[in-house]
C-alpha cells in the first residue's frame, strides 16, 4: 500500500486536457520528480495534489485518506512555491512559525521547532531578518523550513530551484536531498531540469502532453529511455536510422555500412528503427579503427569534458569525452569511433506522437 497515490488523475480546462489519466504511487520517504517540458501538466498535477486546482476526474489518496476534494487548508501538505511565496511583512522566524501558529502549537514548542527548522536549513542566525533582506538562496531555505516545520506527510516542491543561479542551484540540489534524507519526508518535486531530476530523485516521472510516459529510477530512465522523446529530454542522444535485417533473440540491425548485433526483443524483420547512442559512451580511437570513422567539424570545451561534433557517413554524431589531460582532437581531424555492444539502444523508428521531437533544440 503506497503512501501517496494518484489514480487516473485528470484535469480539463474546457476542451483542453491538461493532465490525462495519471497513475502514480509514491512510497513513504520516497523522493519522486515530475519531469517534463513546460506545458506538460506537471505543475497542474502538483496543484491538484495541493488542492489549488480542482480535479476533473480521478482520485488523490494520501495515507489511505481520499483528499481529492478536500480544502487546501485541511490537507496539511508542505509546499515550496516557485516564487517562494514568503510572507514579506513577517520576519524569517515568524514566517516559519506561521504554520505552527495556525495549528495552535504552544508558544514554547513553537519557538523550539522554529529554531530547529531554521538550524536544519542553516539559517538560525537570520531569524530576525525580513525576507527582502535575504538573498535568493536564503529565501529558498526559509521557504523550505516553513514547509518542513509543520512535519507534513508529503512535501511538494514546485520548480524550487529555477530562480537560483547555476552554481547555487547545484549546491541547493544536494542540500535539498540531504535535508530530505534527514527528515525522511515523502517528497514530490516538479522540474523541467533533467539534471536536477536525475541527480536527487529516487524515481523520475517523465510527463508529456498531460501523460506520464515513463516512470523509472533515474539510472534506468537514462539507460533505457522508453521513447525518442524521453531519450532526447533526459540527456543527449545520437540517433541513427536503421532497419532490422534479422529478427530473433539477438537481432541484427543495419544502418548504412554499420551492422549491429542487438537484443532482439520486440523487433521483427524489416522494421524501421532508430539506434540510440549516448555521446559519452562513444570512445574516440585512431582513424580506421573502431566501428565508424568521421571528421571533427566542431569541438567545444566544457571544462571537465570535450564535446566533438563529427561528420560521419551515417550523419552527424556527437561524442563526449572526459578531459583527461591528453591533447584534444582538432577541427578537421579524422578520428575513429568505437563503443561497447551493450550501450546500443534500439527504439521504434516512428514517434507515435507527431510534433514531439520538434520541441527539442540544440540536440544533435
Amino acid at each position: 500500500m503506497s503512501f501517496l497515490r494518484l489514480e487516473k488523475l485528470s484535469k480539463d480546462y474546457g476542451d483542453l486536457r491538461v493532465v490525462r489519466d495519471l497513475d502514480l504511487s509514491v512510497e513513504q520517504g520516497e523522493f519522486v520528480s515530475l519531469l517534463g517540458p513546460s506545458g506538460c501538466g506537471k505543475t497542474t498535477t502538483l496543484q491538484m495534489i495541493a488542492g489549488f486546482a480542482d480535479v476533473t476526474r480521478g482520485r488523490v489518496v494520501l495515507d489511505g485518506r481520499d483528499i481529492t476534494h478536500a480544502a487546501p487548508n485541511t490537507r496539511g501538505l508542505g509546499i515550496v512555491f516557485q516564487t517562494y511565496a514568503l510572507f514579506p511583512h513577517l520576519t524569517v522566524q515568524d514566517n516559519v512559525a506561521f504554520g505552527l501558529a495556525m495549528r495552535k502549537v504552544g508558544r514554547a514548542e513553537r519557538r523550539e521547532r522554529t529554531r530547529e527548522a531554521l538550524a536544519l536549513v542553516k539559517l538560525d542566525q537570520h531569524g530576525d531578518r525580513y525576507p527582502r533582506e535575504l538573498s535568493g538562496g536564503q529565501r529558498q531555505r526559509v521557504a523550505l523550513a516553513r514547509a518542513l516545520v509543520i512535519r507534513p506527510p508529503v512535501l511538494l516542491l514546485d520548480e524550487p530551484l529555477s530562480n537560483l543561479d547555476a552554481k547555487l542551484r547545484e549546491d541547493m540540489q544536494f542540500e535539498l536531498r540531504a535535508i530530505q534524507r534527514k527528515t525522511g519526508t515523502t517528497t514530490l518535486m516538479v522540474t523541467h531540469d533533467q539534471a536536477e531530476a536525475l541527480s536527487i530523485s529516487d524515481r523520475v516521472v517523465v510527463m508529456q502532453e498531460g501523460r506520464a510516459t515513463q516512470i523509472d529510477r533515474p539510472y534506468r530512465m537514462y539507460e533505457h529511455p522508453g521513447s525518442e522523446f524521453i531519450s532526447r529530454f533526459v540527456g543527449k542522444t545520437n540517433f541513427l536510422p536503421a532497419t532490422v535485417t534479422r529478427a530473433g533473440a539477438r537481432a541484427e540491425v543495419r544502418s548504412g555500412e554499420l551492422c549491429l548485433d542487438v537484443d532482439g526483443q520486440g523487433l521483427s524483420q524489416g522494421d524501421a528503427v532508430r539506434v540510440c547512442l549516448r555521446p559519452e559512451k562513444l570512445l574516440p580511437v585512431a582513424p580506421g579503427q573502431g566501428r565508424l570513422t568521421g571528421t571533427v567539424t566542431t569541438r567545444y570545451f566544457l571544462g571537465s569534458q570535450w564535446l566533438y561534433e563529427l561528420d560521419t557517413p551515417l550523419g552527424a554524431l556527437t561524442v563526449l569525452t572526459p578531459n583527461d589531460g591528453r591533447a584534444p582532437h582538432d577541427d578537421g581531424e579524422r578520428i575513429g569511433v568505437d563503443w561497447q555492444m551493450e550501450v546500443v539502444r534500439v527504439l521504434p523508428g516512428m514517434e507515435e506522437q507527431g510534433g514531439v521531437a520538434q520541441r527539442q533544440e540544440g540536440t544533435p
Partner: protein
Amino acid sequence: MISVQAGPAPRRRLDGLPAVLGAIPVSLLFLSLVVTPLGLTFVLTFRPFDYNTGIQAGLTLHHYATVLSDPYFLGIFWRTLWISVLTTAICVAIGVPEAYILSRMRAPWRSIFLLAVLSPLLISLVVRAFGWSMLLGPAGLIGQAARALGWGPLLYTPAAIVIGLVHIMLPFMIIPVWTSLQKLDPSVEHAAYSLNASRLQTLLRVVLPQCMPGVLSGSLIVFGLSASSFAIPALLGGRRLKMVATVVYDEFLTELNWPLGATLAILLLLANVIIMMAYNRVIERSYRRSLG
C-alpha cells in the same frame, strides 16, 4: 507625499545645467501659484482689522489669540477633525474590502467595476453634493426613510456631511489599496492555505498587512482632502453647521474680515501638515524594513 511604496529602479541622474534648466518651469509655477499666495495669506494673518476701516498697517497676534481662545472656533476645528477621522475610517472599512474584491475579479468585470468605482470622479463635485442633498432632504428617499425610522432629519447634520464625504473620497482610498494588492504574489495566499490558515486568517494575517502601505497612504489622502473640503460641508451642512473651510469662506466673503479668515486657513493648514507628517513617520518606521 508618501514614500512607503517602492518606486521604480533608480534611473540615470541628471546633473548640472540640464537639471537646473529642466526644473525652471515647475519652479516658476510653484513659486507663482503656491508660495506667493500662501506667503501673502501668512502676512495677512498679522494685520490688524477694524470693521469700520478695514485692514490696517502694523503687526498683531490678535487673530491667533481670537481663534485659539474662542470656543466657537475651537468647536469648529474639533468638528472638522472628527468628521475627517470618521470619514477616513469609513472609507477604510468600505474601500479595503471593495479593492480586494475588485482585485479578485476576472478580466472583463474588473475593468467595468473599476470604471464604476472611478466614475464619480468624472462628475462635478457640486452636482454630486446637490444630488445627495436631494436624497437626504425631507422629500428625498433617504431623508424620508430616516424620518420613518425616527432618526430625525438627515440633511444639514454631520451625518449628511460624512455620507457626502465618504462618497467623494472612496476612489482615493480604493486606488492605492488596489495598487498594493496588485503587487501581491498570488501564491502567498496559497502558501497560507497550505499552512492550515483559514480564509479569514489568510485575509487578516497575510493579505491585509501587505496592503497596509496602500491603506495608510489612502487614508492620508482621504483625511487631508476631507479636513480641507469646502463644497460638501457647504451644501450638506447648511448655513449653521460649519467646518473650517466654510468658516474661512464666511470670514472672507461675508464678514469681510480677511485677516481672521487667513488665520483660520493657516491654522487649518498647519494642523493638517502636522497630523499627516506624524502619521507618515509612524508608517515609514513600521514598514520600511519589511515592505520597503
